[in-house]
Structure formats: structure tokens, C-alpha cells
């Protein structure tokens, strides 16, 4: 979305128009083109592969249903990401109690003893002594740290630091103004810095 700019948008627009005129395969091309990015966003938002799979599928089903009504008021990818994030948020809302049960709360698992106490929520299976933390476990800790952020901050940090969208693009996807994007991103990074400080 951010890297190839106009060409990408133009290509998407052509596919949408083709779909609109009855070419079903155009939708498949859009799915194949965006499936990994959407999936990754969903996964980073939900920290669960199956739930992410469900959400990513649901996102494309929603797209399929409403693609004919797409008015090109934003780019396709902006619209797609917006739907993906909203689908994730709805999913979190419906699974919140269930997911909460799977969490345990740990105090300062990786931080230096002298540092300000930080709290990190990790999946119980991700527990490991500090010395045994390998790359995979480190990733799991980062995942859980992202997952533990408030939804608005999580959305912004995923779009910025994982999907590398510009501030303007994030504003379009989330509907926040630029200032809000900046402040939410700053708060999200600060929260992660507190949670992950010991890892750096």
C-alpha cells in the first residue's frame, strides 16, 4: 500500500471493476495478493493462528459481499485493512472472556531487578526461565506484549511497525486524525518499551 503507491491502487481498481462486471476470478486475485498481509495483521492482533485464520477469512467474505458497492472513496487496501481491523476488534470482543482465562499474569519476567516494575501478559505455555529464552520465546513475548495493548494502540502499532504504513495511511484506515495517530503510536511504543525493555 505504501510502497508501490499509485500502480498498486490502479491495479486493485482494475480488479474491482473486473469483478463488478462479473469476472469472479478478479476477486481471487485480490485475495491472493493481500491474504498474507491481512493474515499477518489478524495474527498480530489476535495472537492466535486459528482465530487469525477465521478473521482473515471473514474479512475477505465481507469484502466479497460488498465489493460491488465499493465507491473508491479510499484505496482498496485502506478499505481492506479497515475491515480486517474491525473484524479483529469484534472477534476480540467476543472472545475476550475466553482468552482472558488462558492468560496468566507475570511480574517483570525479563526486566532488570532494579528497573521500574513492568507487567507482561504472556500465554502460560510461553513461560520459561530468563536464561532459556531463545528467539522463538522472545517472539512469543513480543507477540503477547502487543496483544496486551489496548485495541486502538494495538491497531496503530501493527499498521505502523509491522505493516509499515505511513501516518497518513494509518489515519485513513483507522479514521483517526494525524495527531491522534501520532499520540496513540507514541503511547503504544512507550507501553511496549516498558514491557519489553528487558529484552532490548
Amino acid at each position, binding site marked *: 500500500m505504501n510502497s508501490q503507491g499509485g500502480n498498486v491502487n490502479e491495479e486493485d481498481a482494475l480488479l474491482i471493476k473486473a469483478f463488478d462486471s462479473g469476472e469472479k476470478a478478479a476477486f*481471487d486475485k485480490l*485475495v*491472493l495478493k493481500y*491474504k*498474507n498481509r*491481512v*493474515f*499477518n495483521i489478524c*495474527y*498480530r492482533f489476535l495472537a492466535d*493462528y486459528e482465530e*487469525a*485464520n477465521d478473521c*482473515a*477469512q*471473514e474479512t*475477505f*467474505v465481507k469484502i*466479497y*459481499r460488498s465489493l460491488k458497492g465499493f465507491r473508491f472513496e479510499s484505496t482498496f487496501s485502506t478499505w481492506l485493512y479497515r475491515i480486517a481491523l474491525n473484524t479483529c476488534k469484534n472477534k476480540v470482543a467476543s472472545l475476550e472472556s475466553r482468552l482472558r482465562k488462558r492468560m496468566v499474569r507475570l511480574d517483570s519476567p525479563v526486566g532488570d531487578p532494579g528497573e521500574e516494575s513492568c507487567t507482561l501478559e504472556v500465554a502460560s505455555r510461553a513461560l520459561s526461565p530468563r536464561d532459556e529464552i531463545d528467539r522463538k520465546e*522472545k*517472539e512469543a513475548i*513480543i*507477540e503477547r506484549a*502487543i496483544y496486551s495493548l489496548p485495541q486502538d494502540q494495538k491497531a496503530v*502499532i501493527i499498521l*505502523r*511497525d*509491522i505493516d509499515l504504513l505511513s*501516518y497518513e495511511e494509518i489515519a485513513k484506515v483507522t479514521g483517526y486524525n494525524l495527531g491522534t495517530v*501520532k499520540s496513540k*503510536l*507514541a503511547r503504544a*511504543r*512507550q507501553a*511496549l*518499551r516498558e514491557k*519489553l*525493555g528487558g*529484552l*532490548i
Partner: protein
Amino acid sequence: MDCSRVRELLSGYMDQALDLETSEIVRKHLLDCKLCSEELAVLKGCVKEILSLKQVKAPENFLQMVHERIERDFEFKKIVHKFFIPLKVKIPLELVGVLGVVFLVIMVNRAHQPLSLRQPVSFTPEANQSLKGLEDPRAAILPVITSLNALSATARTGESFYLSQGAFFQNALPVYTAGRVIEGGQSFELSRYTGNEYNKEFPKIANIVESLGGAITFVHLDKETRLLESLTVRIPSNNYPVLLDKLKEISLVANPRLSVIRKDEESTELSIELLPSR
């Protein structure tokens, strides 16, 4: 600008998202403030760690799964459309259908209720004896009681009745019942016969016995199948030949298996076997 304000701006600073003037102020502060510089490095480290997360890819068959989901969605909509559109027509029709089904279920359920709770039934000692051996003697008569309810309104003491109940089946065989009103419709002496063609003739036999001033004193049911096997009848001895003649008029009992149990001048007690010999 103090450190806390600078730290708020570090995120925008590292993304070059601050205006030039603010960015310059932050830059100068960082040159002089070791703690804030370290903070910026940690923040950058955090972002680097997040960036280093591997992209999680969708499953290979993702597109196929999306198609299946769309198909399911489409099928569901089709079903909804089929059953509910147009609402004004289909909802009332479905409502009528549902009410009809509910009515049927209630009626069937009522017919099979344990009616012993509704209708007191007493047995003569002989009848009790004949029902002995069944796990639950009441179970043998339960289906009958429904009809007795209707009967009790008009029954008179001593009146005999015969019920042919096509509605109740056990072991896929028709059920027949005969009985006698004992206490003005409050209790009944009754027998229930589930079984073959021979059982169909029971009401006729009972009628003949009654008309000749006799009575059915014992019914013998097969313990396993609960089918009627034989009847014990007491009849005035002078009517015994008439009984034999009358029984012959009944087609299926043309050659009744009879055995006289006791005979004296006044009465004769005999057994009538109704089932074909096994």
C-alpha cells in the same frame, strides 16, 4: 524542553514525523541528555524487535477456505430466503404449521400419559392374580385408561364394555380391551389384550359369556410378550352347550381350544385358549 516532554516526542522524532522546529529542539536536547538518548535507543530497539517478527502467512488453501465460506454464506442466505421471504406470506404459514405440529405433539403426548395418575383402577383378585408376574402390572393397562376416561362419564356400575383401540400398538400388534365397571365409573375391572387375530374376537367372546350370565374370571397373559393366551370363564352349567355353539359362530374361534376346569350342577368353569399353539 524538559525530558518528559522530549520522551513523549521520541516516537514521532524517530519516524521524522515532527515539524522541523520541534524536531530540531528534540535533536539538540538529545545531544545534551544522555538519559533521553538512551531512551531513544531503547525505543528504536523495541521497534526493531517488532519489525523483526516474522510475517505469519496464511495457509496454502486459504483461498479455497474463503470460497467455501462464501458458498456456505450463500447457501444460508438461500435457505433464509426460501423459508422467510416474503415474510408476510411465509411467516403466517409457518406459524400455522408450527401450531399444528405442537397440537399434534400435545395430543400424542396426552394419549401416552401415565393415566393411572388420572384414573383410579381397581382389579378383582383374579385379575390381579392374572397380571402377576408382569414387571409392572399397571404398565399393561396404561394405554387403556385413556379411553376409560371418556367412558367414565357415562359408565354405570356393572356395565360391561369393550374397547377396540386401534390407536395403541405394542409390538406392532393391535390392542383390545374389555372390562366391567365396578363403582359407577370410578373404577373398572379390565383386561387388556395385545395380540393376534384371535384377540380381536375377545369382545365377542366376552359378550357371549355375559349374555349367558357368566363372567370372565381369569386372563392369562404371556409373561414375555404380554399377549393374551387364555381366558377362564365361569358360566351357568345349563348354558354351557349354548356357549359352545355361540363360540363356533365366531369365525376365528371356530375350533376353540376349550378345557373344562371344574363342573358342577350350577356352574362350569372352563379355559378358552386364544393363541394358536406354539
